[in-house]
């Protein structure tokens, strides 16, 4: 017997088409289907296009480096560029981003250097950028935990009367976690200036969304928390940007949190150690390749005359330059210091840690036994 019994409520509800502003063919949708959102200006869309192209080049480059065995792991966001780039583009400088391990291209788009993004994936340290400069929290690995941090930071900003908004990125699988529920609820009760952007890429590693939940959309859940929810075409960067920007404005003006679901697709495997052929069909991947967020916007921009060959060439050149920078930072010898292991555990030194540090230092000098004997003799 399957655990997934048919849900009568779900089946009686009408299908919910995601909100979009530009369709798969690059055509704008009629105004009465746009949910009241206005298409961003062409200049904005061109900027989003540029950032998506550069982000994808980075993603493809890092995946290649991982396949070459030069990185410990890399969770790709290929195919999800519209969600990632729209989220970052909607941020003001004083806003904070709370990303997950899959959101490296969001970091890149907010200005983090490739070498600092890759510090964790190449194993130098658990995280490697300047959080306060970029106003980006460390990429969270335990699912949905960072959503609560975003709510807390947003609430602190509200208490200090700052106009800072926190935006957190989550995946569809993460919405099953208790911390997601608690974050949605705390945010709504406290009217925290926070925006939840759920990238529904349809798989939590291998498990499809219909085994995560029995409701129609993730966005539907918002009503249960008392906040607005939007179900958006996550491969339409115009729609994602318009909806996220409106949610940011709403949060900034004291209107509280918003839950936004972007329907998208993870084209790559979960990570390099995953085998997606075991749980999804090649035809499905092909279908989603044809709904590519970059190609769609490209069609629109070309039709508008905004994306000339010259502009395209300059974007591609910038993307290649970034790819080269990314490759170059892998050839740099990463300096890791074993004795740094003890440096950042507490704000003040601890005697026991100092002893362990001395032990490791002696071991590095080839004399670990001596350090233990010295301690034993001193207490004898």
């Amino acid at each position, binding site marked *: 017997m399957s655990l997934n019994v048919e849900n009568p409520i779900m089946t009686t509800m009408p299908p919910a088409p995601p909100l979009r502003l530009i369709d798969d063919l690059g055509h704008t949708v009629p105004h009465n289907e746009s949910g009241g959102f206005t298409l961003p200006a062409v200049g904005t869309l061109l900027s989003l296009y540029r950032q998506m192209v550069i982000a994808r080049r980075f993603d493809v480059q890092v995946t290649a480096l991982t396949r070459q065995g030069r990185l410990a792991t890399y969770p790709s966001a290929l195919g999800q560029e519209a969600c990632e780039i729209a989220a970052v583009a909607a941020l003001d400088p004083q806003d904070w981003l709370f990303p997950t391990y899959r959101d490296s291209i969001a970091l890149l788009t907010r200005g983090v250097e490739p070498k600092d993004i890759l510090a964790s994936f190449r194993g130098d340290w658990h995280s490697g950028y300047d959080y306060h400069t970029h106003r980006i929290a460390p990429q969270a690995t335990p699912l949905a935990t960072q959503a*609560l941090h975003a709510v807390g930071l947003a609430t602190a900003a509200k208490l200090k009367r700052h106009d800072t908004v926190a935006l957190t990125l989550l995946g569809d699988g993460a919405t099953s976690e208790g911390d997601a529920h608690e974050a949605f609820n705390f945010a709504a009760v406290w009217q925290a200036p926070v925006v939840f952007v759920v990238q529904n890429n349809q798989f939590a590693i291998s498990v499809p969304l219909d085994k995560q939940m029995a409701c129609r959309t993730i966005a539907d859940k918002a009503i249960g928390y008392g906040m607005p929810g939007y179900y958006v075409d996550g491969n339409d960067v115009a729609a994602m940007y318009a909806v996220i920007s409106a949610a940011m404005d709403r949060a900034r003006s004291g209107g509280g949190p918003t839950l936004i679901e972007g329907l998208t697709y993870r084209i790559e495997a979960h990570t390099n150690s995953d085998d997606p052929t075991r749980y999804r069909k090649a035809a499905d991947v092909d279908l989603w390749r044809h709904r590519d967020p970059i190609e769609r916007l490209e069609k629109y921009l070309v039709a508008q005359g905004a994306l000339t060959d010259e502009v395209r060439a300059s974007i591609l050149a910038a993307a290649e330059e970034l790819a080269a920078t990314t490759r170059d930072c892998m050839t740099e010898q990463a300096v890791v210091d074993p004795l740094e292991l003890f440096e950042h555990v507490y*704000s003040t030194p601890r005697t026991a840690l100092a002893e362990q540090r001395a032990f490791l230092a002696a071991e590095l000098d080839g004399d670990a036994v001596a350090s233990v004997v010295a301690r034993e003799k001193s207490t004898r």
Partner: protein
Amino acid sequence: MSPNQPLQTGTAVRAPETLTMAAALNAAIHDAMVDDPTVVLFGEDIGPLGGVFRVTDGLYAEFGETRVSDSPLAEAGIVGTAIGMAMYGLRPVVEMQFDAFSYPAFQQIVSHVAKMRNRTRGKIQLPIVIRIPYAGDIGGVEHHSDSSEAYWTATPGLTVVSPSNPADAYSMLRGAIASDDPVIFMEPKSRYWSKASVALPVQTEPLDRAVVLRAGTDVTLIAYGPTVKTALATAAQAVTEGLSIEVIDLRSLSPFDDETVGASVQKTGRACIVHEAAQFGGYGAEVAARLTERNFYYLAAPILRVTGFDIPYPSPKLEEYYLPTPDRILAALSTWEWS
């Protein structure tokens, strides 16, 4: 600010008064909030009610909802949002209503509170105090009497302390709030109503030090939180048997004060650790192991543990059989060969 620095000067000096531990904790939070506008308080029932143990009594009325607020009933949410607040420059003091109700927050505490400084190479620090009323002997129903300290002491990155008396309760909580590191502040429920005369703002020993509460020559009895009273009663009772017991109140479980405890053990040559938590894998195992490693040649006998049994905490009518008592401790000491 270092946890060992003196208190700030904004706190008025008061005449000695008889205070319960709960009142001393209340005064510590109050004074910290007066001195530091970044200190905020939230948790379950800590607002108008003042907490189920009244530790936050009156603070909502004095400081208002922006600094003292009832949160939704969700411990991971309380700790998780405290992390975000601390990242933005606040010093949250949050309450887990009871020991066993802190477990939903386990992931936030172990994976983030404890690791954030290390993960970010010190760029993000989390000055959060997580207050946890713990241990038994209050006739509590299930899930209201756990001694959960070993979960936290086994986690690098956390500071874990437990006061045993009103003066320490005040001083240690002020130190914990002033600390730039996250502190698990374990409050022994059975001692909330214990009284002492205290002149606030009292400053006792530094947060990371153990203290010798009673000097002795034959045995070092090591206790913390709720069992300090038991250890002192044991020492008093032992006098009639001609046994001189030195009682140490650890105060800080992590870090462990090797210096103070080691010096005592080297003097007496015999040590026994007393705690309410179950024995297997308990905090006493670490104490016994490190004291043995560092002081083996001074020891006249194996280090003993007198603890709760390796069973879930019992129901109210049976807890007296579970808790360490002076008689049980003295019986354990009598198993040593005394030459």
